[in-house]
């Protein structure tokens, strides 16, 4: 008997299978129609309340943030972020149409490259598809628009999210994911990011900048 059959039949032998039809139906319906469980009250706020909570929560993780009215302000804000930290005026991004439409060419001093990271980039900018107020979390989807290596390799990660995409809870983020990608297809990775990378492995002291970015900067647009 192959291992797969052996494991599955060992499980079956211990389960109550008197009504196998009902057992199958329970699994099929749960998978076909996912239901949200208990959602805490914390994130259930009006849109402005959600944005305020999101910013408060993500700040507690050690991230920085700012808010601007229009997407066209983002290139200048990104350039200022780099300048204020004495970083070279260089930025990497993917092919996200929302980022491309922002007019980065207006920032003449900023040199912008496109594509995944090879580890040599100090700073990158990505566009999130959703944010979660309850926990201060960004949702990024991998792909050429926002390559996953940009989320993890650079020392500084700037993430843009639209104000109308700040939801209350993870269930709202998952609903958005299904809407964007269709129920059947997931991107290679869905990355939920709550703050800059950190470690407490040495004497339980919390330190920022373990293997991923040392700094996370969030720009809320709208």
């Amino acid at each position, binding site marked *: 008997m192959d*291992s797969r059959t052996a494991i*599955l039949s*060992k*499980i*079956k032998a211990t*389960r*109550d299978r008197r009504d196998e039809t009902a*057992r*199958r139906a*329970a*699994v099929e319906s749960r*998978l076909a129609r*996912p239901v*949200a*469980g*208990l959602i*805490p*009250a*914390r994130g259930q706020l009006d849109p402005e309340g959600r944005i305020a909570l999101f910013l408060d929560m993500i700040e507690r993780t050690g991230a920085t943030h700012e808010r601007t009215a229009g997407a066209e302000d983002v290139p200048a804000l990104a350039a200022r972020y780099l300048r204020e930290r004495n970083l070279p005026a260089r930025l990497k991004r993917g092919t996200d149409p929302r980022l491309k439409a922002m007019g980065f060419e207006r920032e003449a001093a900023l040199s912008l490259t496109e594509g995944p990271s090879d580890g040599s980039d100090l700073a990158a900018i990505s566009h999130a598809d959703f944010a979660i107020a*309850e*926990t*201060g*979390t960004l949702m990024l989807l*991998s*792909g*050429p628009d926002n*390559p*996953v*290596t940009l*989320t*993890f*390799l650079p020392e500084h990660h700037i993430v843009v999210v639209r104000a109308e995409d700040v939801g209350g*809870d*993870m269930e709202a983020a*998952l609903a958005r*994911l299904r809407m964007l990608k269709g129920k059947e*297809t*997931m*991107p*290679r*990775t*869905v*990355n*939920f*990011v*709550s*703050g800059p*990378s950190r*470690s*407490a*492995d*040495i*004497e*339980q002291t919390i*330190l920022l*900048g*373990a*293997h*991923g*970015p040392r700094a996370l900067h969030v720009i809320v647009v709208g």
Partner: protein
Amino acid sequence: MELTSPAFKANAARALQDAQLQKALGNVEKGFVAKRAAARQALPEFEALRDQGRALKTHVLEHLDLYLEAYEAKVKASGGHVHWAESAEQAREIILDICRKAEAKTVTKGKSMISEEIDLNTFLEENGIEAVETDLGEYIIQLRHEHPSHIIAPAIHLNKEQVEEDFRRVHTHLPDSRDLSEPVALLSEARAVLRQRYFEADVGITGANFLIAETGSSVIVTNEGNGDLTQSLARVHVVVASIEKIVPTLEDCASILRLLARSATGQDMSVYTTFSTGPRRPEDEDGPEAYHVVLIDNGRTAMLGSEFEEMLRCIRCGACMNHCPVYHAVGGHAYGSVYPGPMGAVLTPSLNGINRSGHLPNASTFCGRCESVCPMKIPLPKMMRHWREREFEKNLTPAATRYGLGFWAFFAKRPALYRRAAGLGMRLLSAFGGEKRRLSRLPLAGGWTDFRDMPAPEGETFVAAFNRQRGA
């Protein structure tokens, strides 16, 4: 790893004498307990979420075969491969085979307890493949040729001076004069050294906190970002996971995520929660070209339908050990197996057999804190008691304890005799207690009096005092 659980008593005695260890163990209470309490306090729905989590996992276990089949179909549909391993040995062979086909010389690893359980690193090294741990804590203990002493903080038994010593010993390409006195300097050095390794690796191995049947996704939850670099930069991503990691849907995963980080580190959510599905898409410019999942049984199916089935709800948060007075006193290594603390005391005998796990189920004061903090409401003390019963049935209990219990049972079954004997004992001990009312030595009780005095009884048994007072 070589199991030293049968030597728990000797291990524990050594741990209690180890000043370095005792200093480091202070960080367990300082770090975890208050943070979890604050996170729990800040979420009024926490208790209701625990009940929901327990119900959810119970539902999964009742339908485990069906969810595994559904999960497998989804992984295949997204271009991934699923392998099934009944034992640790089979799992190691499967992983080695994947590495060989990828012509791998180096593999990077995200933190994974199941890979410790199957002792993967030793096996890969024996077969000429270098395995590099990338989680900071795991990296440190790999340099020291040690095993994790905690399931989420593998190097919690160490102080920073010890880490500095190891880095100086191993990172010989760096100048001796560098300052490594602060934890941040140690972290930066590890970051720089490991950066190169991610790019050199042919295969990246991670564990999984969850496997989602609805989508065929595996989920890792980390703070450092090392797991994501491991699985994104290598050509091949291998996920090793035990079969009970299944959850039905994305929403079900979200429900349990609310419990995991809060119970573990007191965070509302860990920094990185990543859902991975299949290999990179044709249009993607980064990510692995191949995606494999190795589903491991290694003793789990034998727990189904037994009094230990509920242990399979465990989400490996570490709360039970963080709140355990025995763990606080002796640390994780004394348990002599991969899984320490209360969850280890239940799981290790299940996976390795009670005859090879010695006194583990006795490594408990039965104070019940573990069960009261367990997000999955696993009745850990009850299960440790089950193991004690089995140990006793199998004649594995030490002779002195057996005779002692037999002696006690003789009197316990004869209440009148018991009262008379107990009363006599009381009066004797009371007389020996002297002025200070303390006994510093007692026959047959050296285990107690070697470390502390026994308060001398006041000359009356509980039953006698009860009857006297009621009569009064």
